[in-house]
């Protein structure tokens, strides 16, 4: 299988600060890949190295087999980057910005139809001849995405694309990006919204202190130790006066009409627990279960230091 991005032994040092410490990572063609990590973990530095905006102190990066330093022309043609910051050129209109970016990639008038299509898909058509300065933050974000896609890159890297955007725009962006993925583009996403990563990404790498501390499929991470725990909250009709001995070691909290039980997925049976309570004369008024999600995995890995 062709690799969309191959990162081999990449380190980056700024004086005494080791921003990246020997990253090895392979992103397969057609994947929707999530790159997560707390602030300062090294995500943006890694993306900048992939984009050629920052030089690695050691190691190499290839995009679809093209080295980003030695074969930068071909590597950049394969790559579309949506930067994190809302940067724009205040001299030009939306259409001019997109045509200029297209021209940088060696494309001329033959690409104008695609530019119009992009503006239409991102709901920018009525702003085509508006100066960039006059656009709202959300509109500028859409132009950034259009700029990254103007040369139809096979690999699209989005660095926190939904940071600070409203719900409507976020939904529009995700629908659009899901469409790109369906068309065969490889998508690399960094986000602080872990729910998004959980919904969208096939595979996820978690960076912390310049290292990859977790790399697995989304399901793999969700099946990790922490995710095997399910919290069951039970509200009872009668006050809880007795706890059946067979579930005593699973009980985490008891109040007058409430019991909180922690069970292990695929080990404990909720039905057996409820049956034990019924036999002890406790009728159940309501019940809810809480499973650990990607956010719990992320918190566990990045803040408690386990992998």
């Amino acid at each position, binding site marked *: 299988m062709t690799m969309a991005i191959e990162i081999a032994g990449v380190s980056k040092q700024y004086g005494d600060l080791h921003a990246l410490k020997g990253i090895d990572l392979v992103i397969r063609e057609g994947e929707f890949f999530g790159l997560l990590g707390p602030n300062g973990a090294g995500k943006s530095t890694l993306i900048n190295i992939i984009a050629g*905006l920052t*030089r690695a102190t050691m190691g190499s990066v290839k995009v679809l087999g093209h080295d980003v330093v030695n074969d930068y022309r071909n590597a*950049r043609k394969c790559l579309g980057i949506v930067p994190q910051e809302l*940067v*724009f*050129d*205040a001299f030009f209109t939306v259409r*001019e910005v997109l045509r200029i970016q297209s021209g*940088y990639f060696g494309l001329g008038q033959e690409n104008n139809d695609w530019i119009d299509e992009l503006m239409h898909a991102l709901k920018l058509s009525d702003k085509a001849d508006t100066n960039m300065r006059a656009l709202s933050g959300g509109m500028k974000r859409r132009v950034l995405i259009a*700029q990254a896609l103007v040369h139809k890159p096979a690999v699209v890297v989005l660095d926190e694309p939904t940071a600070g955007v409203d719900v409507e725009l976020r939904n529009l962006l995700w629908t659009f990006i899901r469409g790109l993925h369906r068309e065969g583009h490889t998508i690399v996403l960094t986000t602080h919204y872990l729910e998004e990563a959980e919904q969208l990404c096939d595979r996820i790498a978690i960076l912390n202190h310049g290292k990859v501390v977790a790399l697995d499929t989304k399901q793999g991470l969700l099946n990790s130790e922490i995710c095997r725990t399910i919290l069951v909250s039970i509200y009872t009709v009668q006050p809880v006066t007795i706890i059946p001995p067979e579930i005593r070691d699973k009980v985490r909290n008891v109040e007058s009409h409430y019991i909180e039980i922690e069970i292990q997925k695929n080990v404990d049976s909720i039905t057996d627990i409820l049956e034990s309570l019924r036999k002890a004369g406790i009728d159940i008024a309501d019940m809810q279960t809480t499973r650990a999600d990607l956010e719990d995995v992320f918190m566990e890995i990045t803040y408690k230091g386990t992998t």
Partner: protein
Amino acid sequence: MNGRGFYTLFYKESLRFYKVALQTIVAPVITTLLYFLVFSHVLEDRITVYDDISYTSFLVPGLVMMSIIQNAFANSSSSIIQSKVSGNIVFMLLAPLSYIEVYLAFVSASIVRGLMVGTGVFIVAVSFVSLPVYNIAVLLLFALLSSAVLGTLGMIAGMWAEKFDQLAGFQNFVILPLSFLSGVFYSIHSLPDFWQNLSHFNPFFYMIDGFRYGFFGVSDINPAVSIIVTAFALMLLSMLTIFMLKRGYKLRG
């Protein structure tokens, strides 16, 4: 070679100054003409630099070249620092453009702006004073070489500067004194020996003296020397600029 990429960057750099032509073309033409009107009015009857050439005529080539120099420098330097500070330089850095293509595009746009302002000054000035053209090829050669030198120097300054203040310092403490002390308003033969000798270390002097030769056929030094010095300056600065671009000096982290 990404020919269209080069052309697009050149077009973008030219469109950038064209969109604010009042500031980038009209204003420098008017400022230079004010110099022309004031200096020619005050000094016309007091100074004779070359026989048979009025001071007002003498002044025009120097002012035209000064405007070319200053505007070629301003174009590349201001574009790069603005793009760096606002962050939109990433769009150029993400593109498959080689260092040579980036260099050529910026310098070409600087030449265009320098020549447009210089032509503007020339056209208005000749409505006040008649000016001979001794050798148009020499004149064009110096205009092209000089604007290329300053466009290149502007790229270096733009890459080096991290804030507008530093660029203004470069402009006010390097470009402005060197252009004012290069013989725009006088012949260096009118200076004391020390200052005359010092002027030979000022590359702008060769640009203006050679350019003036294209109009009058007379100059303070041999125009061939001026061509060599200007071309050598262009070569050295171009090599430095391309090296800086290749290293990503203050552009790529």
